[in-house]
């Protein structure tokens, strides 16, 4: 199976019964009603809300849809959905989404607890290694029990080194060491793990700021990427997460994980709109190759359950 096919089939298998019923109701409406009516708009609104786009974004998008339908004199209800998809795609595509890569590169991976940072790092490391790059990992989560072991197991499986200290040590020191090692070993990609932290804990966010400062100071000639990992199942709180993490360490992109479940991750649309933060990768499983570059149009198709 080609990589693309595999991604689609993963997304397809992730579509819930609920999703099917919701979309088929829309299809029905599209077929039955000869005109574009409020009921159709309500159904579309429901799809967006239940995909976690949030009230504000949903309202704005539906308003935009209505005026576009009017402007372009669209009479055929079956075209409405495509217009809607186009609007969301435009939001997501607005700026350059493709991962822009230059080496040597340092990737700092941050996020709240349990979103899949360490797993994402394993997948990223494997991806770069397969591309023939020399990869090094830094075990910057010195807080959670056995987080260092978890990263070490990934490192071992993939065949990349892990710079680590003991649990409870200063994460900034671990990352400092890793940068020195990366420089002397001429590593192409250094990926730094960090402990999960809730964005409303000031001391933990300050710790992250410190780590960020050290990276900028000690490794200024590297290409720096700071990835915020978001769980696709997260609701409106993800906007707060994105805002606070952006403030602490200047996020350059989002990794949206666990898209192989029934959650649609629609909150990234709101985040893109509000904070202009691009989505770079999506996680679609627990396997080492279950990381994909983000593609707005397949994401939007999946949002509506229209995976072909």
């Amino acid at each position, binding site marked *: 199976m080609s990589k693309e096919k595999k991604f689609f089939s993963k997304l397809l298998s992730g579509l819930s019964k609920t999703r099917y019923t919701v979309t088929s109701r829309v299809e029905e409406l599209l077929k039955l009603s000869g005109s574009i009516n409020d009921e159709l708009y309500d159904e579309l609104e429901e799809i967006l809300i239940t995909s*976690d786009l949030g009230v504000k974004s949903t309202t704005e998008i539906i308003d935009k849809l209505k005026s576009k339908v009017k402007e372009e004199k669209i009479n055929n209800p079956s075209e409405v959905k495509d217009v809607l998809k186009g609007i969301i795609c435009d939001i997501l595509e607005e700026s350059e989404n493709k991962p822009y890569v230059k080496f040597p590169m340092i990737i700092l991976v941050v996020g709240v*607890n349990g979103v899949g940072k360490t797993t994402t790092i394993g997948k990223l490391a494997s991806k770069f290694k397969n591309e023939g790059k020399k990869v090094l990992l830094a075990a910057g989560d010195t807080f959670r*029990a056995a987080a260092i072991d978890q990263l070490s197991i990934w490192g071992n499986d993939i065949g990349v080194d892990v710079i680590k200290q003991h649990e409870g040590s200063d994460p900034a020191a671990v990352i400092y060491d890793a940068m020195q090692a990366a420089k002397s070993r001429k590593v192409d990609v250094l990926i730094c793990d960090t402990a999960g932290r809730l*964005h409303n804990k000031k001391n933990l966010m300050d710790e992250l700021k410190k780590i960020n400062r050290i990276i900028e100071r000690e490794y200024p000639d590297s290409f720096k990427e700071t990835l915020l990992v978001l769980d696709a199942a997260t*609701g409106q709180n993800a906007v707060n997460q994105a805002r606070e993490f952006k403030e602490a360490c200047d996020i350059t992109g989002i990794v949206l994980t666990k898209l*192989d*479940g029934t959650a649609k991750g629609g909150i990234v649309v709101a985040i893109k709109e509000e904070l202009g933060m691009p989505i770079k990768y999506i996680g679609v499983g627990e396997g080492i190759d279950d990381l994909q570059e983000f593609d707005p149009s397949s994401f939007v198709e999946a949002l509506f359950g229209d995976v072909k």
Partner: protein
Amino acid sequence: MAFESLTNKLQETFKKLKGKGKLNEKDVKSAMREVKLALLEADVNYKVVKEFVSKVSERAIGSEVMESLTPGQQVIKIVNEELVSLMGNDESGINFSKTPPTKILLVGLQGAGKTTMAGKLGQYLSKQGKKPLLAACDVYRPAAIKQLQVVASQLKLPSFTMGDKNDPVDIARASVSYAVKNNNDVVIIDTAGRLQIDQDMMNEIVNIKDAVEPEEILLVVDSMTGQDAVNVAEAFNEKLDITGVILTKLDGDSRGGAALSVRSVTGKPIKFAGVGEKLTDIEVFHPDRMASRILGMGDVLSLIEKAQETIDEKKALELSKKMIKQEFTFDDFLDQMNQVKKMGSLNDLMAMIPGIDKSMLKDVKIDDKEIAHIEAIIKSMTKEERKNPLLLKNGSRKKRIALGSGTKIQEVNKVIKQFEEGQKMMKQFSGMMKKPGKGKLKLPFSWK
């Protein structure tokens, strides 16, 4: 922020809904629109919101507006009551088996916080005199077993592991026999995170359930979960008939609407909450507190509560009668102030009133200390003076009052002036209030 604009919108709604006796359909509809938005913003599932709103609207229409509340506040009061009753009124703990060990199975999606919660729950139960054993059945995630071992040793609790090469069903079964042998009266079984649509993994967890017959099957849910919470909860409950829910990461700033979604689709109680990074950060879940967090109208709710508690309905009625007859005296002034005082800090209170713009309050600094002075001054007046403020035109009376209250004549003058302003306001009010006691906040304390 979204939340602030929501509060503002609500206040707009409140402004429109003033001074009516019974809640009519229009009142309820417009207030419910805001409630619906509030719940959706809090991540309560769309369908759950729809059902809830229509049910509550039915109850609200035609209900009497309480003496001390505006119709908008009355709607919120009803909404909150229904939310609390939906969340469950009581706290609920662990059901222990009569024949130990009690088996507690923790299940949920990846990253919900099961392993950490296994430790926290173990800590909580050992503090209650139990001897819990932590069993590591997550053989998939790298170092998950090690994580549970580390957590257990930090808490000085025993753990049971068989490595990651064994079937989780066998590990679970063996952990129970191990507990029996070692006199552990509780076994907390940590399992791998799994998607509810992963058939193989869901079958595995059913097999674990069948093998150990746990007294408690607790679904661990991240409190930041969005709309998908219903799908997850429905599927786990259908497969496993869970006995309860644990909400994690509640120390974040999410409104936690997932709690309501999960509760509403499963009907199972939320038993515990994870509230911090430390292994002692676990709390018995309080449904009523969660209701107001989800609704996000804590300020309005506490005003309603305070108003209900402290405003003496009879006195309010008497006062409004006096207001109409325009017989407002210093005694009433004092009385009114005492009632207001009971409600707590005035500035806080003012800020809580829907419809009051916070920027307006900048000029109306009400000093609680000042209130004490006013009280002293009024108490230093004779009965006659209090009834007939005109007597206070006399300078020597003022001097006596200042001496008696330990204040200065200027302050006495100020109080008299404030009183007169209050009287003026009363007159205006009485014009407005043809029918006394219909849903107005009868506290004219806006002195400058």
